[in-house]
Structure formats: C-alpha cells, structure tokens
C-alpha cells in the first residue's frame, strides 16, 4: 500500500494512503505513521489521516485508528479523519468510533 506522510505547520503530520486497509496492510500503515512521528524533529500534536482513497477498512484498520487515537490523546494532541468514503462510514459507526471521532 502506498503511504505518504507530510509534515505541516510546526507539529502536524498529514498522512495519505490508497487502497485497502486490511489484514495485509493495516500493520504496515500503523508502523509507518508511528515511525514518521518518532523521526520528526518536533513532537507531532496534530495527525490528519486522509481516507479519500481508502477503499476498504476492516477491524484491523479500525484497530490501528484506535491505537493512533490513543497515542495522540496521550500526547495531548488530536487525530482527525478526512474524507471518509460513504461506504466506510458504517464500519466506524458500527464500532462506535463516531462517538469520539468526527467521521463527517
């Protein structure tokens, strides 16, 4: 899966990925983001995940999202999900993620 990470502002990280966020790719996705955050000069306080080109998310993907959310919380930072496709929104709702995340 293609993952691109881009710093913005002083402590922001913008992540865009394309394809399926599933058993095969979820771990890779999570590890890549964490590594990027650790490698940043500044501590990342604002994480934006662009879902516009994600076609599928499974529980493995949702698990990674929850992990990232917890990490950002711990750092007093924030996690935002951007442009979640309609067909994926149900999955977020199903597991109650809509209660703490803005899924649009």
């Amino acid at each position: 899966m293609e993952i691109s990470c881009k710093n913005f502002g002083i402590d922001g990280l913008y992540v865009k990925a394309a394809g399926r966020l599933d058993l095969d790719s979820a771990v890779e996705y999570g590890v890549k983001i964490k590594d990027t955050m650790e490698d940043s000069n500044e501590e990342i306080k604002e994480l934006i995940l662009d879902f516009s080109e994600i076609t599928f998310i499974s529980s493995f993907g949702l698990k990674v999202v929850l992990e990232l959310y917890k990490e950002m919380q711990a750092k007093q930072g924030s996690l935002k999900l951007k442009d979640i496709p309609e067909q994926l929104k149900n999955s977020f709702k199903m597991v109650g993620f809509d209660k703490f995340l803005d899924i649009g």
Partner: protein
Amino acid sequence: MFKTLKAKIIFTSIIMLTLLLSVFIFFAIQSRMFTKQLMVQNYRFSIDALFVDDINDSIMTLEDNLKSLALIGGLHYRTSRSDELTDEVVIRIFRNYPNTLGGGIWFIPYIFDKSKKYNCFYAYRNKNNKVVIDKNFASVEYDYPNQGWYKEIISRVTPKRNIVWSKPYFENQGSNTMMVTAGTGIYVHGKLVGIATVDWEMSSVIKNISKMKPHEMMFSMYKRGKKIENSFVLLGNADDDYIIATNDPYLDGDSLVGHSLKKIPWYSPDLYGKTYITYHGKKYIPFFSKLHNGMVLVICLPKREMFRNVDMFYFPFTALILLFIFMILALVYFGMNRYIINPIDKLIDIAHKISHGEDINIKISKPAEFVQLASTFDTMTKDIKAITKEREHINSELNIAKSIQASSLPSVFPPFPDRDEFDIYALMEPAKEVGGDFYDFYFIDDTHFMFLIADVSGKGVPAALFMMTVKTLINNLSQIGYEPADLIKLINKKICETNKQGLFVTMFSGIINVETGDLTYVNCGHNPPLIKTNSNEYKYLECESNIVLGAFEDFDFKIYKTKFDIGDTILLYTDGVTEATNHNDQMYGEDRLLEKVNKFHNDFVDAMALDIKNDVLKYTEKIERSDDLTLLIFKYKNKHNSTCKTIYKAPASKDNYKQFYQWLHKICENWKISDELTNKLDMCGEEIYANIAFYAYPQAQGDIRVSVKKEDNRIILKFEDDGIQYNPLKKPDPDIDLPPEQRPLGGLGIFMVKEMADDVQYEYSNNRNILTLTFNIV
C-alpha cells in the same frame, strides 16, 4: 498297476527270467530223461558184451568140448583102443578147454565085456589146476548108470547128436557145488553106445555176474569201476520152466534150484518188455537175455543207484541255475537302483527343490546319460531363472502400467464438491491383465457435463495403450465445443485415423445440461445402460447401438435427446459386469443386474456401485475374471438456476489472504452482488480468515475451506477448518459505548461479523470447525 519304472523293470525281469527258467527246466527234464534212456542202453550193451557174450562163449566152448569127447568115445568103441590111450586123449582134450571143470565119456553098461559093467573116462581139474583121470566113478559105489544126470541125459539124447542140459543138481561127490551137466549121445552106426558129459559149475557163473561192474565206457560221468550194490541175477530155463540159479537177496536161491520160475515173485514171461519192476519197494531195471543154449539170464539193477550220478548231476545243476537266476535278478535290481532309480530320484528331488526356489548345483557322477541329463537340467534351470527374472521385470512393468492406467481415471469422489446438481460415482475393477475398460466425465463448459463409459477391444498392453489414446482424444475433442452429433463423428474419425491395428471401441456417452436437465446421448456399440426416470423402476434404455468407434471412418451416429428430471438416474456398465462367469460357466447376465439395481431404495450412487461390484465379485468368486469390471452411475439432483456454489481451499496463512479476497470479489462480481453486501462479505471474510490463519493451527500448517453459495435471496458463506476447536461466537462483545481511552484494541472483528451477518452459526463436527454466515440479499 505298475506305475513306477522300478516296478516295471522288476516285473519285466521276473517275467523274462521265469520264461528262461521254464525253458531251462523243460530242457533239463528232457535231457535227463534222454540221458537215462541212453544209460539204460549203455547198460544193456555192457551187460551183453561183458556177461551174456561171455556165458555164451563158455557154453559154446563147453559144447565144443562135449562134441570132442563124444568123438573120442566113438573112436574108442570102434577101434577098441586101450583104455590108457583114451585116458591120454581125454586129458589132452581137457587141456585144450581150460575153463572146463570136469567131464567125461560114459559107456552103456556091459557094452564091451559082459563082465565089465562100468566103462567111463572121467577127467577133472584138481586143486593145482592139473587135469587128472578119476577112475573112482567106475565103481559099484557110484554106479553112474543110476545117477539122475545119466538117466536124464541118456533118455533125451537123439542120433542127431543134440546137446542135452541137465537140471541143476548138487554135486556131493567131490567139489560140493551146484552143477549143470551138458551131455550128448555117442552113436556108432546109428547105435547109442554111451554119452559124453561136461560139467558146468553154476555158482561161479552167478558169482561172476554178481560182481558186475559198469563198464568204463558206460557213462562218462559215472565213477569208474564202482560196483553196483544190490543188484541180483536169475538164471533159468524158460522152456522147461525151472530155476537154475538166483542170488535174489529176498529168496533162498539154493532151495529154489530146479523149481518152477513162478517161485520168483518179480519174474513174468513178459519181463522182456518192461522198463522197470518194483520189488520190495525198490525200483529195478531188468536186463533180459536169452542164452545160446536156450537158458534165460535176467540181471536186475537198482534204478536209483544206476541213475544216482545223473540225478546227482542234475539236481545241483538246477539249483545252481536257480541261484544264478536270482543273482541276475538281484543284480538287475541293485544295478537299476543305483544307475537309474537313484539318479532319477535325485533329479526329482532337485527339480522339486528348484521349483521351490532353492539354488542347487546338480551333482551326478554316473551314468553318462544322467550326467548329460543333469547338465541339461542345470542349463535349463539357469535359463528358467533368467526367464523368470525377465518375466518378473515385465510383470512389475505391467503392474506399473496397470496402476498408471487406473490412476488416469477420475477417482476422487465427489469429483465436483462445489456442484450439487448431480451425483456421480464410477469404478473400475481391473482384471488380472491390463485391460481396455475406461470411464470419464468432465464439464465441457459451465453447464454441460459429459460422462462416458467405453471398452476397447482386445486385452493386454495393446488395448491399454489404445485406451489411453482414445481417452485423451475424446477428452481433447469434447473441450472444443462441437455439437454432440459432430463431436461423435469427429471422435470416430480420429480414432479411425489413429488406429491402424484394427482395434475398436464400444462406448456410451452422454452430455447433460445441468441447468435444464437436457440429455443428449449416443450408443456406439455398447451395452444398453440402465435408466430410471420419474422415480419408476430401472429398465434397459432402448436406443440404437449404432456401430463401434474405429470401424468406419465416415459414419453418422444416431443421437438421442431426452430430458432428465430431478432424481433420474442412469447406470452405465461394461460387459465385465454382465458377462462375468461363475464356476458353472454361467454369466451374471442382464436380468440379474436389473433385478439387483431395482432392489436399491436409497439414492447413494457410491453405495449402489460398490454393492453391484461386490455382488459380481461374489458371483464369480473363485474364478479369475478375464475382463475389467466397470460401472458409472449418474444421478441428476438439482437444477442449476436455483443454486450456485463455489469453493475456496488453500493452506490457512496470512500470505494467502490476498488470493482469498480476490476470489471472493470475483464471485461477488460474477453474481452481481451489491457493493454494500460485497463490503460486508469482504469484512466478515477477512475477520474469520484471519482468525483461522492465526489461531486454528498453532502447531502445523492446515487448510482453510471456504464455500460461498447463492441460494434464492441469500448468500451463505461457510468457513471450515480442522484446527483446534474454537467457537468465536462465545467471545463477549466489546462495549462500544466506552470512552476511547478505556476501549481495548482487540475484539472488534467478531463483533462486527455478528453485526453485519444476518445469521451466524458455529458447529464442530467431524473434528472440523464450521462457521456459517448468512447474508440476505436486499
């Protein structure tokens, strides 16, 4: 009767030796009889030569002597010579006859002088063998004219100068012996003037004869000069019937002298013709001779002693021959045992051992024929070993060929687990040889299923190779997509082209559209199949059998079409079933097969096929089947439009996940399933797949089997694994209302599955975890 060579040889030997023995005994008896006859003749000649002739000579000499005396007596009377002169002449005459004991001239009383009564000249041989004149007889005391012999002789003489023999009498004057006196008359001018006599002593005659010995020439094997004991003699006068002398040991010879011959018990007038007489329990051979003076002489010799030497020769000789024959028999027996029977036994033993696989060097040292036989045998054994080895090699190759052939037939049942439109089961029980039966079935496209059964003519390797060719050819051609009629025509054409050996194939083939049940079938010279339609009984399908494949290149086969309903079944078989024969040479037959299949009430094609096979095998039992036994049963179950099912099966691994979801997507696409439902299937599929891949097989690798089935307005997704037992549904649901900080990371997946699927069922059976998810198509 005589099965063994030994018995035959012994039997033949005994027969031959018995014949030989019989011939020998016959000739021996003949020869013995002949020898005895010869001996008897010899005895006769000897007796004649030695005794009878002697006695006759003596008698003749005696008579000569007598005639001389009579002549002198006559001269004395006529010339009135002096007595001294006549004495001298008588002495001289007697000197000329040395065997004469005594005798003389006796004149009739007073013939010369009325005062001189006695005128006689008697001479005898004294103890010194000197002839002297005894004048004592011319005395009143003796008075010779009154003596019996004088009276007897003078009364019987005649002028013809006959010789008269007196009866034997006992001479008591001088010698005290038994005498016979021969006498003749002295006639002068026809007037009887006196008599001349000569004395013959009998006892010496008898004594001489009793001392009889066999002559040297008599019989060469007879011991020379040995006296025959127990012989006896009779001398008598047969004409006047009186006994002169005998030394018969059972009689008193002296007292019988002068008596009738009837006093001798063994004597009879016809004695001359007899070969032997029995006297006091002993056998004697009488030798009868008539003497010159009319007396008879009978010499009796004991038969047994006479022939003792002959018997002594023949009995040991016979025994020796018998012994010899038995020795030959024994030699034949031992020789045969040693040189024929023993080597044969040895060869038999060796052949027996070799046939049991033992490795033996044959060692026979004699006789030459058996040495040669043994060497030939040895060579043969080696050849047989080589041939056997080669044959084993060929056999093992044939077995491999057989297994290759068998494995070329589809043998995994059910062959299409994802298709439940039909049940099919087929089997082939090969005969001992590789054969030419085969069956085959496959989809020629998504909906058309072809099945066939075929029997290649002939047996063995050619048939097997041809079968493989034909099978491949049919398979290849049927995939192209010809119409059935064209397809079968083409198959036939191609088979004709590839078949230069004149082999052919019988085949029954059907193509069924599993969606509609439309069945097209053709029979190429094959046995009519059994068919069951509309739940009726099985019956033989009536259809033209056309001709066999591979016979005529350009042939239009008659094709039949029918429609199968649910439950319709067709049973194909080869002649290995109906023509299987039992030990009574009776065939299994079509009627028995029909009866058998109609007894089935359940629908399990595999059970049915196996049961028929076992029935046929039981029928043939001890007989080795000459033909393959092949069966194929096809049962139509469902129509395609209501059901669709596909199966995924692969090792459960995270690495194979991509392959799995691509398969699932493809199905969804094919079945035109909405994106939403596809997404659901995708998510649930991933969750369950991951569960199995991560947890089901902690130790080793295992498979995951997923089937997806579209049924009316439902999609049924079924996961199966044979890993550790685990029911994911028992896992408690996560609390989705918890604040994010308190929420655990895991446990979302199965919760989502339960949320998304319309029904979730778990079961554990046959050591398998089975999870069935049902989704309604909205």
